[in-house]
């Protein structure tokens, strides 16, 4: 069956970037435009979700709003992601970890501050352990306000980010709009000890032994256990402690 080329429409965005030569299967295009189209429409999102905004992020990625339509996909590792969505309150203890994950992401990368807490700290701003906005240590490209923002707002933020990526690749943004830098002295460098290396191993052992619900230095025999919760299935000859 012959195809009538004159009746064929090209409504995919990709076809707006290229120019077909009629009659032959050759298309001409600008590589830069293709790269722009590709980089704006294949955003892999690293969800840095610490609190309730994370739930809205999940709703946005689920089938109702479906962020996947925009070419994005949530990904659990920072090393393969392009966008970090910080969804939730960031505390003083969490901030170095967020910074570390941000540093692990390869360039080019963008950051979306989702919700009031990530933007400014919101009403937790003056609490001793909360940092007043993530832009004190990460350059934020798009702010999505709300407490929490609904999924459509996050989708709108993502569309604005795509717009920003396109504009920056086309050279329409100034340097500060391109990547808002934050003062370097606001970056808190050191991460403290991550493991309980100084803890007494004997204490660990005691707690592990007592984790069966018996308490420290405590012995319950089988009849007492049966008294507490009468279960006929409890083996008569079995070791009461190990089977629990």
């Amino acid at each position, binding site marked *: 069956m012959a195809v009538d080329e004159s009746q064929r429409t090209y409504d995919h965005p990709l076809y707006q970037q290229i120019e077909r030569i009629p009659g032959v299967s050759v298309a001409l295009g600008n590589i830069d435009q293709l790269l722009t189209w590709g980089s704006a429409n294949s955003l892999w999102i690293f969800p840095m979700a610490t609190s309730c905004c994370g739930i809205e992020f999940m709703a946005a990625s689920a089938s109702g709003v479906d962020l996947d339509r925009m070419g994005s996909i949530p990904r659990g590792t920072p090393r393969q992601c392009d966008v970090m969505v910080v969804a939730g309150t960031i505390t*003083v203890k969490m901030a170095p970890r967020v910074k570390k994950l941000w540093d692990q992401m390869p360039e080019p990368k963008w950051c979306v501050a989702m919700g009031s807490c990530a933007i400014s700290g919101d009403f937790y701003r*003056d609490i*001793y*352990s909360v*940092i*007043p906005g993530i832009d004190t240590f990460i350059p934020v490209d798009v702010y999505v306000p709300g407490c929490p923002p609904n999924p459509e707002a996050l989708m709108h933020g993502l569309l604005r980010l795509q717009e920003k990526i396109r504009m920056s690749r086309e050279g329409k943004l100034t340097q500060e709009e391109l990547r808002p830098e934050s003062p370097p002295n606001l970056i808190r460098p*050191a991460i403290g000890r991550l493991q309980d290396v100084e803890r007494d191993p004997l204490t660990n052992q005691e*707690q592990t032994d007592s984790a069966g619900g018996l*308490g420290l*230095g405590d012995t319950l025999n089988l009849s007492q256990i049966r008294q507490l919760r009468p279960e006929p299935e409890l083996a008569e000859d079995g070791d009461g402690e190990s089977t629990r």
Partner: protein
Amino acid sequence: MTGHEAQEQFVALLRERFGVAEIPDGNYPLIDARHHFELARVLKEEFDYRIYSFVVASHHLATADANNDGADVEAAHYEVATGVRCVGAPAHLASWRVRIELDRAIPTLFPLFAGADWQEREQYDLVGVRFDGHPDLRRLMMPEDWEGHPLRKDYAIDTACSPWR
């Protein structure tokens, strides 16, 4: 045994064996700090209170005699409220308070209840009350290099936390 009877049993125990004269209405009974561990031990071993429910410490500033009318002036102190719960019906919660000076420590309940470990660490971290005999009294929630105890009354809201404020 109903919950009411269990409470009466607990009050009788406090009166007879720990010399608590006053049982306040609507608040936890205040017992001497020396009896803290012993009360928990008796409750656990004799009355089967096996669940360590909570420990909440609070910091109280010294009260000033502002009007010079001879009102009672209290020194700054900690109040530590502890609650243990018995297993099975009626699941009664036995709770009491202990008042200690700022420079003193309260005996830990860790030898009786393993669950006291992190709860006491949390109270030490946030309020600053020290638990004597705790095997591992380090900060739990705040960063290891944090200075001060943020839930104390004398911790100013604008305390500097470099580099954030």
